């Protein structure tokens, strides 16, 4: 006899599909941002943004389906509450990626050459923060106690992103570009940085779920 009930297997499968969808969204975010930083606001980039939006909204639909199944008493009330809150936090990460892409698309900024490398680096750091939180999610469903060590990595990435964001913003405001453009660039940088911020918030939730299961 399996140690999981039918409903638990159903929930686990839905969560796996949901996490894969978020993976696709973040991958699309990375590819799109790189395409933008290299080629600017092209038709392909706009098409990429639409694809990312499609992944994000599919993930959103899946999360709602998981919510409904969980409200249908698939788990103990305590585990149910933990999982629902955790998914709510996790879902804010693809939303941040989508927000960053949307902002990039509507601003269609001409990025100064000296900032390109750092912006690419900022995107990579934030995608890396997501990759680490994804690993934490996998571990949570395997061995929750292990996640307590893993979440520290997410925290480190968030700090790295923060430092780079500040450095980019400082350089923007020291440059001779128009004030309006400065403000828009600052907003874009901070919106990208939201991915690691939200990954860190999710890491905190994961730690709470793991600690609660330590007796």
């Amino acid at each position: 006899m399996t140690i999981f009930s039918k409903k638990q297997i159903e929930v686990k499968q839905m969560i796996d599909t949901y996490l894969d969808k978020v993976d696709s969204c973040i991958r699309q975010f990375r590819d799109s941002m790189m395409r933008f930083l290299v080629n600017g606001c092209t038709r392909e980039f706009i098409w990429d943004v639409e694809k990312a939006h499609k992944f994000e909204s599919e993930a959103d639909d899946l999360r709602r389906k998981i919510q409904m199944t969980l409200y249908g008493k698939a788990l103990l009330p305590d585990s149910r509450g933990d999982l629902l809150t955790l998914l709510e936090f996790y879902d804010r990460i693809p939303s941040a990626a989508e927000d960053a892409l949307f902002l990039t698309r509507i601003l269609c900024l001409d990025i100064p050459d000296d900032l390109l490398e750092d912006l690419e680096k900022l995107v990579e750091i934030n995608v890396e923060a997501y990759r680490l939180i994804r690993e934490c999610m996998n571990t949570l469903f395997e061995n929750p106690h292990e996640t307590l060590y893993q979440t520290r990595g997410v925290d480190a990435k968030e700090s790295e992103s923060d430092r780079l964001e500040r450095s980019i913003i400082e350089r923007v405001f020291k440059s001779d570009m128009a004030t309006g453009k400065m403000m828009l660039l600052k907003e874009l940088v901070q919106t990208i940085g939201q991915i690691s911020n939200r990954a860190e918030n999710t890491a905190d939730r994961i730690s709470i779920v793991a600690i609660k299961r330590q007796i």
Partner: protein
Amino acid sequence: MWQIVSAVFLGWSLGANHTANVFGTAVASRMIRFWTAAIVCAVFVLLGALLQGQAGMATYRAMAGVSLNAAFLVALCSALTITLMTYLKFPVSVSQAVVGSLVSIGLLEGNFHWEVLVKVVICWVGTPLGGMIFAIILYFLVGKFMNGLSLNLFQHDRYLRWCLMVVGGYGAYALGANNVANVTGTFTGPGMLTPFQACLIGGLSIGFGVLTYGKKVIMTVGKEIVRLDGYTAFIVILAEAITVHIYAGIGVPVSTSQAVVGGVMGIGLVKGVSTVNLKRLYQVFYAWVGTPAISFFLLYLMFSRV
């Protein structure tokens, strides 16, 4: 033997009121369907009554040997006390109601044995204490074992669900073993029921109460225990079951609700939080004093009019 009707009524109300103490968490949080819990509970109550229910009956016989009509009055007054108190939403304990009636009839008929009452009262006080001590010990022991298993989120949930089911069955067994004496214990005198017959009728009537009226009570009483998380609820029910089972062996019917209060207090001590307020402690104290007093006077009034 029409007099047994009052015992069946008492058994029915006991079954209806006490299912929540063993399956409250599992059913109120909808982890286990009510009917699954009710059937498991009814079967294990009957098993407990048949296999280990006779010791409590011997204690009641030793406390006051009563006639068939007196046994009828004891069961009737206890059942009426419980019904009245439940209606007035006052806390109530079946064991304490039965003892109140037994003391009354014993004194009226002049064959009451105080030394047995002392033993019973000591066990009453020991019930919440036992629940508390077992909860503290089990919290650490079972916790160490579960931590060692390194379970994931879903496994943890699934094991806990099974634990609650198993401990619910054990709790039902202990309830049957300990409390069947309350139902038919006074009917086991000479010329009345044999201990086996008494256990069978008592067990069946408790089971009948579980099946016919347990759901309504389980959804209200159970929600109070649900406020604990799954693990602590499991520990509280296990502590309660062990405590009540031990008293079944000693042969003193005790209150399962008071064992639960003790267990919840134990969890509070371990976690350093206040889990039981003064109102709950007052309720336990009231059940020790108020319930037997009411059934005592109720029987006294009835007996003097017969």
